[in-house]
């Protein structure tokens, strides 16, 4: 039997493609290397009950995967560091049915019009291959609107003065503001910033057969026990209900077969270790910006840009100790954000010039706390001071923080390729990440870090501290490994086959019936979480395949 499509990856991109294609009558298989904890195995149209408020299970024991013992990645900051300096967890996005959608805390902002046209708006940057996207905001807007309804996004219309135009309202109103955010929002506003309720894929009211979020607080890095989060459960359930999907968890896609520049299907290894071939008219790769180029390289595709331009956001983390409880354990982990540090101002333009840059951009700033006790405990020393520190809780109970998801530029030296030695448990070469932030990221972080600390002091902070990920020290230290999961850019989209791997619709220039439907295709990283944009692009690519239009 030849399927209409094999979709590799069941995360937000793959689930969206499955939803659109099955609605158009296509028969598809979804290949997912991780386990299924998202859908009820006895009825795949219903959510499962595996997720829970369990810090050991989700934070310490790799419940969502990938487990670095069986799926290791390797890292080095540059080729000068040898084959690798680290083996283990590198930019790990969950390896499970639902993919990265399961662990995210659901902030799903749209990009802004300028994010798609950096070169024409601001100009080039030395050392980086900054380019305009082959589509603009207006072209993507109908797909943004469709997937906001599909995923279920809560937001406040008109609250962000910097937002791009919208064709309709948010599907749901914003949820309850976290207490700490009410204080940080007021402080930021006093200093002239423009915070707003984060567009969030967590139901504020019952929506699409799923309940309203009940503010349990176990959001970031946890699957949602009540499925109020707009992870891919919504799209997958709809696709399953058509009866036209075969979901294949614990199944690894090891290669795409081609004949004369057309894909004929996908080789997979199943849960029992047995290899099989899934014949298909189309192959959709939606495995994420590290696993997608890995699969293309394992398949022998040889476009020289496959894997190049890895971006993952340069995170500036600014924490402050408050003289009051912040109650960060209650609510959706992050309820407010601000865009001012993407947009910039006279001071940031001056800082860029002084730093030798033609322009610079920071990123979305998330207002949040730190709510987990095991995480807190491991930040304190052991011994006699431990009980007092945990009881007083300067981190869990009294800390407030800003995380700036700083836009990192597309450097050709930052890349994903196949490690020459390290393998996964199935015997396939592991993905190797080579990543080092550049001058742009460091200048932006140095400029905005103190400004974020000033907001914390305006809140009443007794102390503040600024760090970043990746760290700024020894390139061979573990701190050099970026912790961000916002991986993008390794299979660049563009009109010119010489400077891009896929066309503006996500089709590979060299093999046109292979479509990439995840954040790999991003041309630049913007300063926003990638999920909604990758989902909108996946919906667009799927509609192009199916010959349909967004609802």
């Amino acid at each position, binding site marked *: 039997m030849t399927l209409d499509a094999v979709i590799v990856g069941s995360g937000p991109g793959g689930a969206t493609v499955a939803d659109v294609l099955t609605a158009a009558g296509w028969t598809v298989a979804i290949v997912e290397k991780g386990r299924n904890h998202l859908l009820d195995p006895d009825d795949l149209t219903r959510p499962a009950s595996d997720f829970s408020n369990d810090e050991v299970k989700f934070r310490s024991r790799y419940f969502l995967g990938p487990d670095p013992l069986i799926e290791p990645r390797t890292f080095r900051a540059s080729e000068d560091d040898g084959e690798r300096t680290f083996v283990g967890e590198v930019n790990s996005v969950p390896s499970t049915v639902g993919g990265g959608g399961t662990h995210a805390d659901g902030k799903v902002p749209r990009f802004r019009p300028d994010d798609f046209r950096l070169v024409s708006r601001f100009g080039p940057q030395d050392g980086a291959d900054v380019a305009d996207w082959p589509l603009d905001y207006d072209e993507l807007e109908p797909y943004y609107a469709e997937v906001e309804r599909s995923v279920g996004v809560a937001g406040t219309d008109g609250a962000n003065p910097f937002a791009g135009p919208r064709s309709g309202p948010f599907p749901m109103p914003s949820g309850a503001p976290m*207490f700490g955010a009410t204080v940080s929002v007021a402080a930021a506003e006093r200093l002239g910033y423009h915070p707003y309720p984060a567009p969030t894929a967590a139901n504020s009211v019952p929506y699409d057969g799923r309940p309203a979020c009940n503010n349990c607080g176990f959001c970031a890095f946890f699957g949602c026990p009540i499925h109020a989060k707009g992870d891919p459960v919504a799209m997958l359930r709809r696709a399953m209900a058509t009866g036209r999907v075969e979901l294949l968890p614990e199944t690894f896609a090891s290669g795409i077969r081609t004949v004369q520049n057309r894909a004929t299907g996908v080789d997979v290894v199943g849960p029992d270790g047995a290899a099989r071939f899934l014949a298909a008219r189309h192959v959709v790769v939606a495995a994420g910006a590290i696993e997608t180029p890995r699969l293309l390289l394992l398949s022998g595709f040889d476009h020289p840009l496959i894997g190049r331009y890895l971006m993952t956001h340069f995170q500036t983390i600014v924490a402050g100790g408050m003289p009051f409880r912040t109650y960060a354990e209650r609510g959706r982990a992050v309820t407010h954000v601000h865009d001012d540090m993407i947009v910039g101002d006279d001071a940031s333009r001056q800082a860029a010039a002084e730093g030798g840059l033609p322009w610079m951009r920071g990123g979305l700033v998330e207002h949040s706390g730190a709510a987990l006790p095991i995480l807190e405990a491991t930040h304190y020393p052991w011994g006699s001071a431990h009980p007092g520190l945990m009881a007083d809780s300067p981190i869990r109970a009294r800390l407030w923080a800003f995380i700036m998801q700083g836009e990192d530029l597309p450097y050709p030296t930052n890349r994903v390729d196949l490690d020459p030695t390290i393998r996964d448990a199935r015997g396939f070469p592991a993905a190797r990440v080579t990543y080092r932030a550049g001058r742009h990221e460091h200048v932006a972080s140095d400029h905005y870090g103190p400004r974020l600390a000033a907001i914390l002091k305006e809140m009443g902070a007794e102390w503040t501290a600024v760090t970043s990920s990746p760290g700024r020290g020894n390139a061979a230290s573990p701190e050099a490994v970026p912790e961000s999961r916002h991986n993008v850019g390794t299979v660049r989209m563009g009109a010119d086959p010489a400077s891009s791997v896929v066309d503006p619709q996500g089709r590979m220039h060299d093999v046109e019936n292979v479509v990439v439907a995840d954040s790999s295709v991003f041309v630049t990283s913007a300063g926003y979480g990638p999920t909604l944009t990758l989902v909108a692009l996946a919906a667009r690519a799927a509609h192009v395949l199916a010959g349909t239009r967004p609802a």
Partner: protein
Amino acid sequence: MPVWLTEEEYRVLEAACECLIPRSDRGPGATAAGVADYVDGLLGAFSFDPPRIWAGGPTSGRMGGEAGFARFHQLSAIDELAWRTRIEGSQSLPEREFNGPVVGLQERYRQGLDALGADFCDLDVRGREARLRADTEFADLLYGHACEGMYGAPEYGGNRDLLGWRAIGFEGDVQPRGWTDEEVTRP
């Protein structure tokens, strides 16, 4: 009766955990909270069926709902490979040594506890701390697990009677109750 450790090893482990997270006027120590049981339970996770690796969901029953945490997940074949390798080590088995030998937690604990010495429990606090500081790699391993045992869900064997959470005013798993909007915004 320990699950995997010997009685003597368990005694040293319990004393070492108490040294890391001691009882004080600010809260109970690791011994009262059963932290050693957490570690011993991890080392002996495969003594149970299903193995005690991942507690179930979606609720524990403490805030309503069923006691789902008590139903541990079955592991898939590749999950079992990962966790047996992590706990038992690679033991020269080719399927566990695709990237070379792995020293398992059982061996690391057996060696670490042995290095602390049979007389560890007879030492005063300063003596115990000195022994732990002499092997920072083992102390770091043990401290990470001790924190999990003290402040993790009690279904894993530690946090006995919720002593860890109660000492720090942490409500723990709150599903299916959650928090009301009022409790979130105006606590």
